[in-house]
């Protein structure tokens, strides 16, 4: 079985978000980049499937050369080889188009339910539609029995059991697998694993990001004495008008 895991290269979850160049570019100063946390779950499940059933795992990232340390980390975690589509990931449609271009021939195409930068949560579904494959997200559990894939999908207030056959696209989230931390042997071997750089397919832009904004600063907190809890209720009713 061939598994493709698509990973995003995103700011660490503790990052402070700022923009530069008249709010048209993300400020990378002091920001640590990581494998998207949801993509990391997808990768961990792929490695488990590799260990249990002898699958091969390829990682794919759409990004410029700066993303290579993130890709190497995925190789260190246990992926066999990698593809980097040499382009800035401008939007979901662009990224989905690039993934679809390279995903043919894979049995299972995994990625996170969403990237934690743009949060659109649509790339897996776009890829599925582009390739005419079933796509399921957000997947909390995924088991393979022959060509049948049994999944659990999170819905508001519960979960659904879903079945489909390979090939298939899935957007993953916890608790599909435990995140894996690369060991020293993995880190050493990752240096020599193949990382193929390919040029992107030309795409007619569906959207154009013009500008970014930060939320307005929060006003000062109003402190209330623990001996006067009733005052909080009054404020919530009359001032905040939320009760």
């Amino acid at each position, binding site marked *: 079985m061939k598994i493709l895991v698509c990973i995003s290269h995103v700011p660490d979850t*503790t990052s402070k978000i700022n923009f530069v160049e008249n709010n048209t570019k993300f400020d990378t100063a002091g920001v640590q980049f990581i494998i998207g946390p949801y993509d990391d779950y997808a990768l961990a499940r792929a490695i488990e499937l590799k260990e249990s059933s002898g699958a091969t795992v390829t990682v794919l990232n759409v990004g410029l050369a700066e993303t290579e340390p993130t890709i190497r980390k995925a190789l260190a975690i246990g992926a066999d080889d990698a593809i980097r589509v040499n382009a800035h990931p401008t939007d979901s*449609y662009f990224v989905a188009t690039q993934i679809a271009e390279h995903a043919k021939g894979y049995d299972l195409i995994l990625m996170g339910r969403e990237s934690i930068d743009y949060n659109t949560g649509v790339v897996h579904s*776009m890829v599925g*539609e582009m390739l005419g494959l079933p796509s399921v997200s957000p997947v909390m559990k995924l088991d393979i029995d022959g060509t049948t894939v049994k999944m659990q999908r999170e819905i508001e*207030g519960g*979960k*659904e*059991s*879903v079945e489909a056959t390979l090939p298939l696209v899935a957007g993953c989230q916890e608790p599909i697998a435990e995140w894996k931390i690369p060991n020293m042997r993995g880190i050493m071997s990752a240096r020599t694993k193949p990382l193929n750089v390919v040029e992107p397919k030309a795409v007619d832009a*569906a959207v154009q990001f013009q500008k970014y904004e930060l939320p307005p600063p929060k006003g000062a907190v109003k402190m209330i004495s623990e001996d006067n809890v009733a005052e909080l209720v009054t404020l919530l009713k009359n001032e905040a008008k939320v009760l």
Partner: protein
Amino acid sequence: MAILVFIESAEGKIKKTSLEAVAYAHAMGDKVSAIALGTVDKGELEAVGKYGAAKVLSVADERLNQGVIKAYASVLAQAMEAEGADTLVLANSSLGTPVAASVAIKVNASLASNAVELPNTSGGFVVKQSIYTGKAFALVDMKKQKKVIGIKKNAVELKEVGGNAEVAAFSANLSDADFATKITNTEKATGEILLPEAEIVVSGGRGMKGPEHWGMLEDLAKELGAATGCSKPVSDIGWRPHHEHVGQTGVKVAPQLYIAIGISGAIQHLAGVNSSKCIVVINKDPEAPFFKAADYGIVGDAFTVVPKLTEAIKAGK
């Protein structure tokens, strides 16, 4: 041009977020039709007219009583065509979001997700969307003639603007491929207030000291008609189920009121709650970073403050 709005229902009721999608489409100023898939009561469909839909298409196909993503996308793409709609509006949800993506590819549309404001059409078609889990916004120009817009909870204020809608039957051509994904079982809490959609959320953190103390938090939630949530450490140690985890990698909430009890306020937790209208923090540590993100704060022991708060709310009713 006409706008089509996909409306979801749960337990026989049209979801509030879907009504917000109707109100959003109405505020865009074009002719609005809504579409509901599966069996939904006619009176419930007619009532969608109050928020601005002139017509509601009902696709009463039993196979659509379950949210099969691909089949839903096929129906919506066909309905857009039949209605001459160039725009589809829906609420982002576990179903709406993947459906929106499929439809966008099927009809060759630009897609925007998590829209928080009406589009600005003064130069292009610019939608403001929430990004970085609510830590920022992006202004995105939707370039294609057709558009699919997913809206975030509370993007518009819900107000009644009209009377009942005309309900019309709509049938779509669906193939076996549309049902290639089979839903074999659904486990869903019934009668409960669902965390992602709740107007009030009461959350607890490690300051609650153990799962056995959640009773007082549930009492408060019950008094407020609130859903309960928790911080990541609490769900990681198994004090509370995973689906209650509020934060950047858990459930993102956008209630009117968020009450955080014994949660210090790690940046990842704040990312999951920063769309809340009003935040109350109760923590015994006056230095807890959460106070900086709060509207109201009480420094005190949760074990004494929370029961007092429950009593005060009871007394104030």
